[in-house]
């Protein structure tokens, strides 16, 4: 490929040339025309000049003759005088002679003889200078100059023309007369009028077609138009006996007009020819250029097509192979090499049916050679489409090809080769297999999950559904379906619901999800869960599609659960009522216990005491001791009753929560305990800032029990220490009461919190064994927990949390 940019540039520059060339030619032709015009003008001027010359010549001759005729008479006079010498002619003879001369021609004004310069004979006398004047006395310098000339030359000397002394325009001819021995005698003089001379020459008026002028030797114009001399006239010098007159003429219309002949024709013809030639040249050039451009464009197109073809071929993912009639591969593109798994060289050395190809059918079985596309095209001459077969590579991989083949024909229709396109459909084939597998999976899954899919066109209402959807309807999957058919399986409120949902999906583009009851084609009532989603294209709902699931079994299970729930609720209600009744009874029982059990005890104790007091003398020490035991037993029973009551009270009482400062509460309780046993020396340590959200009264009971225990079990300890504090662990605040008292064995820890269980004998440490049970009850009611650590003789520590809203500063 040549660079398209540069060739385009060349085309552009050559395209400008035809107009340029045509214009150039026109300029040259016009220049030539101008030159011709100038030349023609010159030629015409010359011709006009020669015409003027020709026309003027007769007049020039006429004038010369007219002047010479007259001065010839002066010569005759000269001879007449010369022969009469030395005495001279005498008046009479002169007059007769002079009269004869003047009669010969018009315009002889005067004939004069001046011997020694003195005018002696003058004819006619009238109107002329009278005799007696001496010429040499004339004061006019030109007259004197003329006289000198005449004396020197001896010929006729002409003066004038000028205004004569006698009046009018005239001229004077003078000739010296000498004696035979050559002595100066005098002058003969003839005065002529000019107009008659001109008349005789025919110059009294301008010759036809000419402007003329006549001037003397000194440039004085005395006849015609003086301006003629300024127009480069044709000039003749008159051959006068003395001096030179000049006669000049120009054409009557001027030279320009005279030389203009032929110009119009020249220019007309010239311009026409110029235009014609330029146009011709332009057409010729442009035609040539158009041809050149066409050729170039077609060449470029061909080159591009060829390049494009090559590129398409090389970049095509479709393998392209050209095979000759001999079966040899003549061309294969890159894709073909890749598909066939061979280098270019080895491809082009093989025939299409070379056994090295290892051609197989799609599933790997043998593929008959005569069925190969190239073979079929060569055999039939007709194209072959989409023949699928495989090629096995040397490394065992197999590729599946889709092959098209078509004959290459020469103009006469003979097959010259076969062009084959190879499409590697291995991936496609694999994808199809995968797709088939996925479809199958989907179908199986749909069947297992009883979920199907459906879709319908909002314009036509026509629909499709999956096998499972059809099966749920108890229909054949092949049956035609659509919105109307689908809706016909519902009735009542379900029909209304689905119709409204579909209408909204179609009109507003909103999806829906419904659980509906339907009656299948087989008449079975089924519950289905259907989800519909609008498919929107260009802002319009074109389809609605969704899923369809048989949920009959789930619905049945749900119904069962509902029934069971209802039963359960009833039972719970019943139980709650029972419990409340029991609670009420228990309350009444407790009340009664607190009253009725204590009254007899009071009586036992009171009357025992009365016995002791009133019958002291009648009782010996054993009797008194027995009565004291009765009293002690009554007291212990009262204690047990009180504890039992408080335990039941703790269980029934509702919690009254507030922020409780446990540290402060502990100090309070310790103060009370100390007050009860002022003799005890116990070191108490209370960490301040233990705050929790709790029921103040109940927490106080806890602290009373724990701190009371701590004091109790350190009764036999020297340097007893009781400590209240708290610590944080795993996000919980553990409050603790620790002592260094009797402690306990951890293996009995389970018994610690059981009501009325004691680890120590009453003699050792008094108590009912209910304290820790109360502690545990209270802590549990707060949602917390209790744990304890202990060792016999080394003290005990009780930890508890009050999870429900516990806090604490640090």
């Amino acid at each position, binding site marked *: 490929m040549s660079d398209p940019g540069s060739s385009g540039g060349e085309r552009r520059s050559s395209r400008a040339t035809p107009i340029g060339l045509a214009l150039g030619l026109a300029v040259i032709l016009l220049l030539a025309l101008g030159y011709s015009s100038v030349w023609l003008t010159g030629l015409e001027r010359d011709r006009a000049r020669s015409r003027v010359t020709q026309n003027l010549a007769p007049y020039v001759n006429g004038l010369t003759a007219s002047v010479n005729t007259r001065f010839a008479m002066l010569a005759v006079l000269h001879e007449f005088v010369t022969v009469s010498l030395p005495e001279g002619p005498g008046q009479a003879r002169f007059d007769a002679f002079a009269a004869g001369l003047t009669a010969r021609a018009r315009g002889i004004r005067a004939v004069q003889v001046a011997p020694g310069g003195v005018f002696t004979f003058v004819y006619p006398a009238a109107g002329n200078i009278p005799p007696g004047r001496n010429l040499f006395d004339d004061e006019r310098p030109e007259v004197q100059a003329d006289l000198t000339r005449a004396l020197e030359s001896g010929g006729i000397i002409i003066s004038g023309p000028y205004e004569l002394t006698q009046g009018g325009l005239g001229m004077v001819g003078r000739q010296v007369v000498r004696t035979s021995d050559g002595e100066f005698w005098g002058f003969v003089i003839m005065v002529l009028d000019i107009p008659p001379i001109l008349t005789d020459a025919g110059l009294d008026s301008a010759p036809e077609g000419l402007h003329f002028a006549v001037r003397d030797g000194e440039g004085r114009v005395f006849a015609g138009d003086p301006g003629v001399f300024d127009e480069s006239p044709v000039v003749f010098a008159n051959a006068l006996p003395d001096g030179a007159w000049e006669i000049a003429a120009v054409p009557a219309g001027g030279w320009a007009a005279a030389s203009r002949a032929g110009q119009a024709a020249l220019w007309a013809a010239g311009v026409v020819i110029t235009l014609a030639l330029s146009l011709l040249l332009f057409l010729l050039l442009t035609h040539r250029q158009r041809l050149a451009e066409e050729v170039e464009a077609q060449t470029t197109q061909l080159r591009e097509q060829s390049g494009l073809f090559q590129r398409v071929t090389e970049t095509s993912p479709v393998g392209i192979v050209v095979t000759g009639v001999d079966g040899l591969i003549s061309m294969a593109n890159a894709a073909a090499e890749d598909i066939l798994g061979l280098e270019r060289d080895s491809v082009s050395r093989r025939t299409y049916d070379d056994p090295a190809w290892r051609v197989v059918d799609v599933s790997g079985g043998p593929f008959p050679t005569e069925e190969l596309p190239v073979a079929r095209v060569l055999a039939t001459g007709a194209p072959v489409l989409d023949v699928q077969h495989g090629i096995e590579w040397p490394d065992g991989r197999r590729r599946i090809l889709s092959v098209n083949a078509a004959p290459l024909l020469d103009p006469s229709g003979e097959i010259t080769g076969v062009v084959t396109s190879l499409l590697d459909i291995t991936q496609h084939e694999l994808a199809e297999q995968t797709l088939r597998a996925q479809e199958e999976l989907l179908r199986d899954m749909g069947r297992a999950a009883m979920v199907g899919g459906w879709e319908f066109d909002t314009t036509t209402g026509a629909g499709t559904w999956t096998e499972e959807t059809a099966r749920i309807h108890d229909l054949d999957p092949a049956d035609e379906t659509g919105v109307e058919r689908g809706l016909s399986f519902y009735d009542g409120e379900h029909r209304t619901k689905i119709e409204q949902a579909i209408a909204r999906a179609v009109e507003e583009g909103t999806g829906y999800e419904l659980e509906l009851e339907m009656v299948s084609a087989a008449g079975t009532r089924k519950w289905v869960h259907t989800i519909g989603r609008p498919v929107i294209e260009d802002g319009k709902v074109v389809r609605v599609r969704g899923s369809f699931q048989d949920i009959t079994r789930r619905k049945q299970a749900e119904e069962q659960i509902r029934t069971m729930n209802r039963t359960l609720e009833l039972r719970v209600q019943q139980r709650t009522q029972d419990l409340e009744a029991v609670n009420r009874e228990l309350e009444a029982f407790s009340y009664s216990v607190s009253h009725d059990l204590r*009254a007899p005890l*009071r*009586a036992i104790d009171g009357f*025992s005491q009365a016995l002791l007091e009133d019958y002291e003398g009648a009782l010996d020490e054993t009797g008194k001791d027995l009565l004291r035991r009765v009293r002690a037993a009554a007291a212990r*029973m009262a204690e047990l009753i009180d504890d039992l009551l408080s335990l039941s009270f703790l269980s029934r009482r509702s919690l009254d929560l507030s922020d409780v400062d446990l540290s402060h509460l502990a100090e309070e309780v310790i103060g009370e305990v100390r007050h009860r046993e002022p003799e005890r020396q116990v070191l108490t340590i209370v960490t301040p800032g233990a705050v929790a959200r709790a029921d103040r009264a109940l927490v106080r009971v806890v602290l009373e029990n724990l701190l009371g225990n701590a004091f109790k079990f350190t009764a036999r300890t020297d340097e007893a220490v009781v400590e209240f504090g708290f610590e944080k662990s795993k996000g919980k605040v553990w409050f603790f009461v620790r002592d260094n008292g009797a402690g306990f064995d951890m293996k009995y820890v389970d018994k610690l919190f059981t009501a009325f269980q004691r680890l120590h004998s009453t003699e050792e440490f008094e108590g009912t064994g209910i304290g820790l049970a109360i502690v545990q009850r209270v802590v549990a009611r707060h949602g917390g927990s209790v744990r304890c650590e202990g060792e016999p003789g080394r003290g005990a520590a009780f930890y508890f949390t009050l999870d429900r809203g516990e806090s604490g500063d640090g």
Partner: protein
Amino acid sequence: MAGDVILLVEDNPDDVELTLRAFKKNNMLNDVVVARDGVEALDYLFDAGACEGRHPAGAPSLVLLDLNLPKVGGLEVLRRIRADERTRLLPVVILTSSKEERDLVESYSHGANSYIRKPVDFVEFIEAVRQLGVYWLLLNEVPPTKVS
């Protein structure tokens, strides 16, 4: 002190006996009128029913009232005492076995002047009665009783 009459409202004869014994032990020689139930107590106080005409010792200066009574309960008796103009200011001490919070609260809210739980230990009981007598009959000043 000897001139003052104490009304003891108590249904349990043992408790009556022991209470009277406690009075004696403390040398409280007051007239003690015993009402065996709420009705008797009210009759005594308001001169009605079975006790009509039996007002041997005049209007009582102190009522010791048990809560758990046959016929009319202690709280009802208390309510009536406080509702009647004549007995509105009469000191009433609840003397009972119960230490139920409910009883305590209700007693005070009905206008009880004191609430004493009878201890099981008779010695303690005597001590409690002694303090009760000293306080209500000796120390406590009552407003002048209306002439009825």
